[in-house]
């Protein structure tokens, strides 16, 4: 409400509720001003019936003099003129006077009121001091009031109010004023509630009668509007609006019911033909003209709707809701058009357009009138609909009245215009003086072509601007397009082009194909008019391939291009470049051979599959793809690997040399491709150090970044013709290499074109641009994606030799494969490989061998025999003539002799410094390998090629000497360490340097033996000698072996040789042990001590040579050697009691025997093996150089030398128990820094232990109870 006060409202309703005044008119007049001011000052709460929310209301009143005519007669329900309250004013303070005149007057007034059934009255008694003073016979003040109350207000004492000194500024006066005002307000509201309630009830009753035949909507309308008026009068605009909305809804429902066949009689008047279409009128608060029409039941549908809306609009503006006006206006206009159609009201063609146009503008003017500019701009979204609607309507009027046609309106059009203008009637008086009134605008627009254009453009641009401002670009473009159509009609293609282009771009970008086609067709027309040949041809090409068009249309556009193409070129202009995308789509490319990697000069074919989009077959004079050539770095080495990687590029790239081009969905076409981003193509990237190929860094690379990061609006340029991009792309360097196909006819649909790719120089070739020429027209695809490339390489000839099997075995013939990759070298007749011979690895060429020639793709091309000549130093292999980039393969047999001496494995490092990785199993099996180097002279190089082959020795041999007393045997164990099964024959053992004749008697089988993998063969020889055995024996073992699989067994047998040396073979001592049961017992028993007798017997005379070995001392002419013996029982069967070891002096003479007695105790029952007895040479301290012992060495020697030192001369025994003390004594003696004696073992065969393997029976003790033996 405050807002109202700020802004003066012109259209405010003048009415106020009527309050009549009777009695002393002059008194009232004196009070009127302050009363009128003070009444609305404070709001009053209005409680309402029917559960409506209570409202605070500022009351105003129109005070009029009481007349009887003002009182409503029966049946008159007019509310606006209804007196809501009657007041009687008096200032009588004189009883006499009261009785004389005032009372009678009041009675008359009361009776009149009662006659009309009005109960809303009030008597005001004004008291003033001044008046009182004048009177001498003053009655108490209250008496008059009491009298009045007595006389009139028998039960309602509140109907009489006293107002004291109203014109004075005193607190008493204030108080009486406020209580009076409160009373007045309360009574007024009570009257409202009562009277409006009654009115509403009546109204409802009337509404319920609407199904009765005589009911009229117009009558009802008037009644309900009365209520609305009252609400408006009370400034309850919301309630007033509700009344109109109810009327609106009621009417709408009737119209709908009518449409459904349920017609009401009263609707007939609304079905009358529309004669006037002068638009809405919103400048008056109440359009009385229309109201009267309604009252008389003569209103047309448009009249009713217009009136209703004008009232709603007024109220909405009171309510500060102008944007609802615009929204409702649009609904109303749409609705009216629909309703007229539904009621089948006959309307002159164009009349509704006029009405809508005028109404739109009227609403907009009305809104502009009550809002400032900033508000309007901020709420474009609410008004733009009306602007657009008006624009549309004006446009259709323009078309109707022939104002758009190039030739101007015909006479028929003019007649129509006159009719339409007639229906507008006279301009309303409100707008006569306004220059921009909707009426004037329409009149002007329809009057001339120029004026129409001016107004139409003005409206269109306004609407477009608004759409742009609120970001509704599509709507703006739609208007732009209709402007373009207008310009085209007007024959102004220059201006149309921009709008069409803008629209087309957006449709293409969003992939709306029907719109694209439609707009493009318009564009084509426009470009043709503008003579933009190139653009027109481009658009035609797109249209010719557009599936949304009929075949005829497509053929037409295709023909346009072909016609142009076939014209002889004018000297001035060059060929016209068009985008290939419109003409044909690339489907796939296929390389043959599929690897897309060929050597220089090889044939490489490229099959291109193209989907031609033209509706007819098109003859293409030349289809060419330019190639980008780049020299590949890194040369020929390692090419094969990188080539494999390259062909697999791209998401569609497949290993079989096929590159598939991504296809947009055929329906959405190019637009979809443009709106959807291509998928990320990510690749793993590894950066390896060039020296040792260790990983420096790794990462992920996006290959199609240029596509992803491209600006978006430029992507549309693929489809829309742009003058700039293509000519630059077509600047083809004539010298560049290209794929070319001539005179092809492309049929509609898929076509296959075969190109032969140039392979003249090594390097990488990338397809860059595809160009098809049809006469003067060239179709260009400026880049091909995914990347299609092939590689041409040049390769140095290369020779490799590799074994056929996993391992080459030494000793037997093995096959190796020679592979020559000829590279760029062509092998001529007479070219030969020269292999320098080595003794350790002869080349066997007895078998006739032939060479196979393979082409670069691995196909077998030919086979020819090899001739191999061998001279003393060189084996020459003459090669068959082989073309370049072929592979020559042949096999040769080589034999690697096994070196007789046991071979130490090499440090496995080859000449080129690379570590050869051997299968682990070989190392485990301990196979001995031999690296054999072959030096080969190749015809293409002046340098020799050095090739290393590794052979493995299939056998491992071990020897050992076995003794039986004095007799000696030699055993050789041969283990097959290879995977092959061999036959073994003729094992022979020979003595190499027979200084002393020794006979070796073979004890082996004569037959061949089969040795499986990992099996061993043992061979045995007995040595016989005449005089004595040599101190040292050089032996050589040899045998023949052949693989079981060998065909020719006899020739296949190859020798194996193993040489070894035996030292100190002859038996010096024999040991014999005897276990004696305790005396008186036949068997040993557990837990009882038994005697152990060890006898050491000298077997052989000491030879001179042996004497040096043996430490002997001469004591009393007798040569003796010192031996140490020790009894060791590792299996804890025996407990050695007393001494377990000792030193004996043996005379150096044959059969000299020394016996030692010891005591042992069996710990278990059963057949127990004898304890071990060991004998060592005992070298006394004098014999060795004095060594300064340190603590470490003394600890190390603990078990042997140290222990015995204490026993040195005593020949004493040391029990195990006493070891610790002996040790301490020893360590004490050590302080004296004595040289230490040492022990030396005998070599195998020198000591023969007779009792080896013997067992003795031990019986358990007879008692069954557990025996515990604790030996510490």
């Amino acid at each position, binding site marked *: 409400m405050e807002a109202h006060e700020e802004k003066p409202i012109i259209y405010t309703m003048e009415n106020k509720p009527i309050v009549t005044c009777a009695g002393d008119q002059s008194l009232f007049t004196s009070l009127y001003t302050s009363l009128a001011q003070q009444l609305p000052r404070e709001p009053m709460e209005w409680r309402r019936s029917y559960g409506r929310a209570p409202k605070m209301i500022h009351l105003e009143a129109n005070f009029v003099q009481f007349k009887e005519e003002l009182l409503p007669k029966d049946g008159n329900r007019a509310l606006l003129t209804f007196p809501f309250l009657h007041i009687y004013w008096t200032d009588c303070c004189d009883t006499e006077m009261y009785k004389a005149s005032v009372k009678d007057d009041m009675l008359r007034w009361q009776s009149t009121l009662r006659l009309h059934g009005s109960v809303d009255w009030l008597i005001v008694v004004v008291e003033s001091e001044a008046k009182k003073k004048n009177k001498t016979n003053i009655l108490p003040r209250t008496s008059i009031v009491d009298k009045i109350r007595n006389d009139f207000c028998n039960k309602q004492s509140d109907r009489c109010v006293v107002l004291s000194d109203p014109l004075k500024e005193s607190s008493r006066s204030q108080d009486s004023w406020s209580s009076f005002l409160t009373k007045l307000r309360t009574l007024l509201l009570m009257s409202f509630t009562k009277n409006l309630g009654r009115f509403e009830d009546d109204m409802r009753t009337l509404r319920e009668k609407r199904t009765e035949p005589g009911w009229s909507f117009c009558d009802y309308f008037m009644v309900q509007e009365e209520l609305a008026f009252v609400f408006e009068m009370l400034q309850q605009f919301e309630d007033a609006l509700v009344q109109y909305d109810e009327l609106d809804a009621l009417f709408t429902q009737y119209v709908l019911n009518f449409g459904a066949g349920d017609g009401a009689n009263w609707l007939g008047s609304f079905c009358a033909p529309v004669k006037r279409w002068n638009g809405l009128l919103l400048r008056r608060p109440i359009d009385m003209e229309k109201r009267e029409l309604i009252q008389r039941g003569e209103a047309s549908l448009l009249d009713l709707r217009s009136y209703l809306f004008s009232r709603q609009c007024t109220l909405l503006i009171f309510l500060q809701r102008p944007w609802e006006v615009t929204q409702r206006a649009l609904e109303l*206009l*749409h609705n009216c058009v629909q309703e007229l159609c539904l009621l089948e009201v006959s309307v002159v063609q164009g009349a509704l357009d006029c009405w809508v146009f005028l109404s739109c503008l009227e609403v907009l003017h009305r809104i502009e009138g009550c809002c400032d500019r900033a508000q309007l701009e901020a709420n474009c979204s609410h008004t733009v609909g009306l602007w657009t609607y008006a624009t549309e309507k004006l446009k259709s009027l323009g078309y109707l009245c022939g104002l758009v046609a190039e030739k101007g309106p015909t006479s028929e059009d003019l007649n129509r215009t006159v009719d339409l203008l007639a229906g507008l009637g006279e301009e309303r008086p409100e707008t006569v003086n306004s220059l921009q009134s909707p009426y004037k605008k329409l009149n002007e627009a329809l009057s001339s072509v120029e004026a129409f254009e001016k107004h139409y453009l003005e409206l269109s641009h306004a609407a477009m601007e608004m759409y742009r401002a609120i970001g509704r670009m599509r709507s703006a473009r739609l208007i732009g397009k209709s402007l373009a159509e207008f310009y085209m009609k007007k024959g102004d293609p220059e201006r149309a082009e921009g709008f069409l282009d803008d629209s087309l771009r957006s449709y293409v970008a969003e*992939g709306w194909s*029907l*719109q694209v086609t439609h707009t493009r067709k318009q564009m084509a027309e426009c470009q043709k008019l503008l003579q933009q040949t190139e653009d027109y041809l481009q658009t035609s090409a797109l249209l010719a391939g557009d599936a949304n068009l009929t075949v005829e249309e497509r053929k037409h556009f295709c023909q346009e291009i072909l016609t142009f193409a076939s014209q002889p070129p004018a000297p001035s202009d060059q060929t016209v470049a068009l985008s290939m995308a419109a003409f044909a789509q690339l489907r796939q490319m296929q390389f043959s051979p599929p690897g897309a990697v060929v050597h220089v000069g090889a044939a490489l074919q490229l099959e291109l599959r193209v989907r031609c989009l033209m509706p007819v077959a098109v003859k293409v004079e030349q289809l060419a793809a330019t190639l980008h050539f780049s020299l590949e770095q890194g040369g020929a080495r390692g090419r094969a690997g990188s080539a494999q990687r390259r062909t697999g590029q791209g998401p569609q790239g497949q290993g079989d040399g096929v590159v598939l081009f991504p296809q947009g969905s055929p329906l*959405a076409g190019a637009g979809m491709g443009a709106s959807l981003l291509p998928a990320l193509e990510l690749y793993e990237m590894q950066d390896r150090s060039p020296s040792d190929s260790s990983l420096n860094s790794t990462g992920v690379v996006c290959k199609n970044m240029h596509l992803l990061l491209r600006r978006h609006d430029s992507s549309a340029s693929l489809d829309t013709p742009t003058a700039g991009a293509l000519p630059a792309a077509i600047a083809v360097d004539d010298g560049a290499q290209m794929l070319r196909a001539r005179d092809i006819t492309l049929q509609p649909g898929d076509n296959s074109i075969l190109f032969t790719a140039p392979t003249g120089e090594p390097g990488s070739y990338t397809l860059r641009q595809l160009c098809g020429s049809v006469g003067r027209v060239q179709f260009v695809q400026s880049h091909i994606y995914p990347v299609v490339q092939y590689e041409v390489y040049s390769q140095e000839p290369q020779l490799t030799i590799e074994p056929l099997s996993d391992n080459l075995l030494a000793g037997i013939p093995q096959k190796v494969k020679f592979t020559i990759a000829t590279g760029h070298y062509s092998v001529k007749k007479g070219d030969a490989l020269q292999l320098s011979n080595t003794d350790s690895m002869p080349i066997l060429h007895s078998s006739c061998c032939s060479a196979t020639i393979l082409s670069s793709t691995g196909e077998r091309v030919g086979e020819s025999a090899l001739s191999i000549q061998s001279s003393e130093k060189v084996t020459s292999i003459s090669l068959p003539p082989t073309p370049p980039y072929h592979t020559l393969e042949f096999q040769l047999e080589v034999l690697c002799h096994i070196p007789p001496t046991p071979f130490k494995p090499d440090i496995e490092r080859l000449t080129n410094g690379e570590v050869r990785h051997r299968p682990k199993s070989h190392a485990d099996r301990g196979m001995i390998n031999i690296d054999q180097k072959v030096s080969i002279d190749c015809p293409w190089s002046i340098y020799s090629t050095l090739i290393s082959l590794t052979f493995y020795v299939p056998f491992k041999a071990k020897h050992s000497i076995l003794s039986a007393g004095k007799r000696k045997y030699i055993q050789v164990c041969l283990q097959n360490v290879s995977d092959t099964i061999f036959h073994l024959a003729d094992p022979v053992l020979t003595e190499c340097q027979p200084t002393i004749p020794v006979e070796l008697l073979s004890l082996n089988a004569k037959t061949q033996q089969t040795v499986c993998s990992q099996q061993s063969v043992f061979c045995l020889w007995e040595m016989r000698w005449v005089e004595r055995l040599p101190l040292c024996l050089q032996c050589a073992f040899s045998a023949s072996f052949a693989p079981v699989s060998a065909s020719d067994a006899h020739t296949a047998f190859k020798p194996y040789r193993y040489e070894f040396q035996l030292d100190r073979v002859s038996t010096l001592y024999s040991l014999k042990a005897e276990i004696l049961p305790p005396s008186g017992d036949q068997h040993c028993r557990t837990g009882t001590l038994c005697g152990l007798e060890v006898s050491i017997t000298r077997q052989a005379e000491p030879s001179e040579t042996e004497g040096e070995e043996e430490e002997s001392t001469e004591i009393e002419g007798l040569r003796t050697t010192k031996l140490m013996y020790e009894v060791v029982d590792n299996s804890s069967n025996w407990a050695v009691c007393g001494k377990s070891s000792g030193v004996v002096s043996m005379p150096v003479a044959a059969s000299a025997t020394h016996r030692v007695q010891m005591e042992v105790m069996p710990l278990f029952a059963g057949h127990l093996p004898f304890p071990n007895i060991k004998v060592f040479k005992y070298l006394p301290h004098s014999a060795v150089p004095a060594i300064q012992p340190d603590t470490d060495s003394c600890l190390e020697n603990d078990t042997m030398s140290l222990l015995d030192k204490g026993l040195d001369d005593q020949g004493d025994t040391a029990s195990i128990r006493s070891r610790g003390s002996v040790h301490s004594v020893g360590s004490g003696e050590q302080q004296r820094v004595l040289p230490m004696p040492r022990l030396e073992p005998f070599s195998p065969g020198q000591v023969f232990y007779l009792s080896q393997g013997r067992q003795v029976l031990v019986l358990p003790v007879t008692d069954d109870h557990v025996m515990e033996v604790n030996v510490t």
Partner: protein
Amino acid sequence: MAVCIAVIAKENYPLYIRSVPIQNELKFHYTVHTSLDVVEEKISAVGKAMADQRELYLGLLYPTEDYKVYGYVTNSKVKFVIVVDSSNTSLRDNEIRSMFRKLHNSFTDVMCNPFYNPGDTIQSKAFDSMVTAMMVQAS
């Protein structure tokens, strides 16, 4: 019932569009395309924070003299647009809502098809027949 039903991808290209009077197809395409303006406006008006609780049904996008255009946006920003003849007054808001719900359900079925490539135009027969059922029978 509806005279035109359209399904529009997040990127605003049509996934499916069908209208009943074939001769007016182009006009409907224009209408649907233009309605995207209002759809976008309505979506952005909701604001980011409230986007989760946004109602999918957008209501009347805009009326024209002959048609009413209703909109619906799925959570994945796929838009459904239904165009109804203005003279068809029997259709209330609730009926339009239920049409959109049906459309959404059927669209979900299409998306669940493992052979359907998201982003492709919809060629499902089931979807088509469901749409046909919602359209005005061509007379």
